[in-house]
Structure formats: structure tokens, C-alpha cells
């Protein structure tokens, strides 16, 4: 829950380190992104190719 209160990736990195957990800057940013809203129009973006690969975010991958 404390992680959710961090305002920046650096704060999160420091909090994690204090708890004995090492995270990279990219991981910290990715974690903070999970807590944030999605600001773009997802419905419109879904239709844009160039970003939809065989495994897109809308569907789980086929069972391997």
C-alpha cells in the first residue's frame, strides 16, 4: 500500500530498497504505470495496426 503512495519512480526505488527489494528504474516506472489511469482512447487505439501483434493485450496468448 505504501508503494501506491509514491509519487515518482525514484521514491519507489528508495522504498523498495528500504524493504530489501532491488528494482530497476524501468521496473519502477512500469509499476507506477499500473497505478495510473489510461489517458488515451483505448477503443480507437485498438483499431490501429502497427501495435497489435499476434498476442495483443486484449486476449491472452493461445495456450502453448
Amino acid at each position: 500500500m505504501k508503494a501506491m503512495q509514491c509519487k515518482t519512480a525514484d521514491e519507489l526505488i528508495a522504498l523498495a530498497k528500504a524493504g530489501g527489494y532491488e528494482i530497476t528504474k524501468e521496473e519502477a516506472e512500469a509499476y507506477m504505470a499500473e497505478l495510473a489511469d489510461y489517458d488515451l482512447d483505448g477503443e480507437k487505439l485498438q483499431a490501429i495496426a502497427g501495435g497489435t501483434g499476434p498476442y495483443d493485450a486484449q486476449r491472452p496468448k493461445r495456450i502453448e
Partner: protein
Amino acid sequence: MRLSTYEIILPLVGADEKPIEGYALLVNGLYGAMDVVPKEDADRLQAGNFAGLSAALRERLMLRGHITRKDEAGELADLKLFSRIYKNVQGRMGVGLVIMPTYDCNFRCPYCFEQHRLKKGQDWLDNTMSDEMIEAVFAALKDYKARGYVVNGCTFYGGEPFLAKNIGVVKKIAGKCREMGLFMGAVTNGYDLEAYLDFMEEYKLGSIQVTVDGTAELNDRRRLHKNGLPTYDRILRNVELALQRGVTVRLRVNVGKENLHGIKDLVDDLKARGFIAKEEERAKEEAELRKTDLKAKTKRGVFSYYFKATTDDAHPEKNISEQDTIDEMMKIGFTAEEAVARQSQYDMIWYRMNNLFKKESYPDFSPAYCGAETGMLVVDPFGKIYTCWDVVGKDDQVTGYVQPGMSRFLWNFNKAKWRTRTVDLMKACQTCPHALICRGGCASRSSNAHGDYFREFCGEVREIFAFVASRVAGREWEKRCAAAAAGEACMDACAGELTLSLAGPASRFTNAERETIMSTTSQKEIFDIVKATAFLPEPAEAEK
């Protein structure tokens, strides 16, 4: 000038399975450019003899990224740029929802990757998702939607999600899905499906994946009922009943050494039971209906089947390669195209490339292998969340949780580790020509091979890509040559350009814009830059 670090040069193979002499396929794995060039020019490229190319060809290949003035670090910077755009724009927009009503299963398949959960005993397995947990999950999903994320569908998964005894809890979950307008599908062994026929019709279940591993006894040894009961006939009978109720059925066949040579018998039996002929009739009927209504559907569901090499990590000596399944299918009479269409590791590349040849969209630039790295959300009966359905039940891979009384999902740092398992950040992938083709490979397979989910897994991707790309491009080239011979097209300098290239859009970013993209965490800021440079196509107008 140098040949791109990400360049792949392949032969062309025609529809007759013979090499197309005199030509070669250039694939730039970073920018997605695919070009057919004379073989002698491909040889010149490999030798670094750029001066030996015609001026027009040299210019075209430079513009498209096959030849570059950038050094390795400069090209890597483009890979990182594309990856950052994807991860912040497309890669974050949606949730791939998977719900597990239970971990219990009535089968004991010897190669199951969830065998670890059996150690917890039947009392634990008997647990199903409680009413309170269902409420919490859907409250959290509504929160997700309210925060701007796209939630389109739900896949039922297990264990076995469709056990007859659990239809009550499945209906409750499906009811919530229906309230949210979610498309529903399931991965099921199909054994108890008869109990779910009315349910599937009432709740308009879109599709199911069912597995059989050969005919009769061969299947029954691998798709093993926990009480030793035969399963094959009952599964296929249920598949037919589901198709009659309008459910799309994708029949999967897990193939190992034991059943590789049973593929022919299975295909013959599917024909004898009428699945193939009925699907052909259904497809014809649908084509007829769609002459007047583009979205028309037949009453009968769509039937298809595909093969996948099993990965039985407890008994690797029983495994085969993906190419073995292709070879076996071609041996029993399938053409290469037909075999590829029925092999899950091959058909996606075939489909993707054929789409790219239309030049209506830029090549894919996702740096993530699958939904596990981009937003898959697998919720188990206890509210534990995983991002990969191969690791359910493994407590060290839980990425978050939801509990009754909560109205949002809570994440731990594992979530961030999975989100950053992308080719721009994995050292071994960063300068690999196949980086944006294989995208780092399967995390679960990486764990089995290297003991680490967060490493690359290459598997057979190079061989699979070479097999498919040579043939898809070969057929496209033959088509273009035939059109030119018939006077319907001309073989001008652009005839060999099979796809668009991201090299052009990438060149439109200013240094300042690149710096902003690489440093900001604002999706809007990144998207505004990307839009201004026309890096992404405009969405098509919605059909009226």
C-alpha cells in the same frame, strides 16, 4: 554504410516447394521492411559491396533500413524507442482477463504444467471462486474500465473450468461478464461439456479450445481421466453438440513422440465424423449470407484444429520439435500452406506477413512476447492474480491480488518484472535480428530451459521464421510476377517492396522528441508526438 544489425536474408520458396532461383528475400527485423531483390544483390549486401548495387536499389534499401549509416548503438536506440512507444501507448491499454472458477480437474494428463497444484490435495482443489470474490473481481474490473482501460473479453480457465459440479459458480461469473458486455471463451477439456450446452447458448459463449491428442486409445493415454475412463469419444461428441449450439471450437492436438505418427489417423477420424465436411458447408453458407450482410453468422459454430509440439518438461525425451509436426503433416499429404495453417507457432507469422503485404499498416513493433508482458490478468479462485497462465498456483509468481471488500486490484513488484520482460531490456535480445519477431520468447519456457522467467527463450523461432517467410514471400512474389505477365501490374522498381517500413516514420522524430519519449511517463505526451509524426496510422472510420 553497413548492413543493418537486424538484417535477415532468406531464400524464396515457391508454391511448388522449389526454390525461386535468382531472387532472395531481405527482412529487416527492426523496421519490418521486407524486400525481394536479385540474388546477386543479396550476395553483394552480405559482402558489404554496396557500391556494386544500382543507385536506385541502394537508395531504396537505405530508405527502408536494410543498409544504414547508424552504428549498432544507433539502431538499438530505435529498438528502444519503438519499445517505449508500444509499452506506453498500445501495450498498456487493455486487460486480457482470464478467470479460474477452480483449480480442480477431472483429468490427469501426464504432461500438464499445473501438476504442482495436485500436491495440495483434493480439499484444496475442491475450492471454487466464492460469491464475495466474484463481486470483488468485477468491482475491480469496473474500476479498471472507469480508469480508461479496455476490458473486452473473459476466458474461463482452470484446472478444468467447466466441471459439471461447478456450473453454478460459472454461471455467476458469466452473468457478471454479460453485465459488462464481455466476450466469453474457455479452455476446457470438453469432458463435461454436455452439462454446459444450454449455458453456452444462453450466455452466448463465443469460443472454446478443446484438446484431443490422437484417436481413441492413443488419446485416452494422454488425455487421461483421473478415474481411468475413456475420454476421446465423449469429447468429440460434446464438440459436435457445442458446434450445433453455435459455439466456435478450436481443437488443439498436443503432439509428442508418442502420437506424432497418429496425426493421420486423427485427421481421418475427424473427416469420418463429418467435422471437416460440415465446416466446409458452414463456410460456404456464411460466404453466401455475407453477400447481403457482412456480419452474418451461421447457426453452426466454426470448427478448426491445430497442432502444437508438447513441452513435457518432466520427460523431455518424449518431446519433438515444432518442425516435426509440419514435416509429418506434409508427409501425410498436406501442402506447406495447409500444414502451416494448422500449426500454432507458424500460422501467426503467415497471417501477419500476408496482412503486411497489403501495405495498409506498419509492421508490428511490440517488444513483448504475449499478454503475460502486456496486461493479461489471470485471477484464481482465491483472488490471487498472475500475469501468465502457465504459472498459476505458483505463489512466487503472484503479481497481485483482489479480496472481498476491495474495489481495485493491488499489485506487487512481480507485476513490474513481468511488464519489463521485453526485448529492449533483455541484453541477449537487444541486437538480435529476430528481436521484434520472437519478442523474447515464452517466459515459462525460459524458466524451464534456464531456471529464470525473465530471460530470453529462442526455441525454434529462427527456423520457424525462415520456413514461413521464405514461402509466404515466395508466393507473393509469384503472384506479382504472374500479374505482371498478364499485363495487370508492372514489375517496376517498387515491385519487390513487399511491406511498409518503420525506418521512414522513425526518421521523422527530432532529437528533442526522441528524448521526450525516452524520459516522459506521460502517455498523452508520447502519443501526441507519435501522432504528429504519423508513426501510427489513423484509426479507420467506424462502419455505419
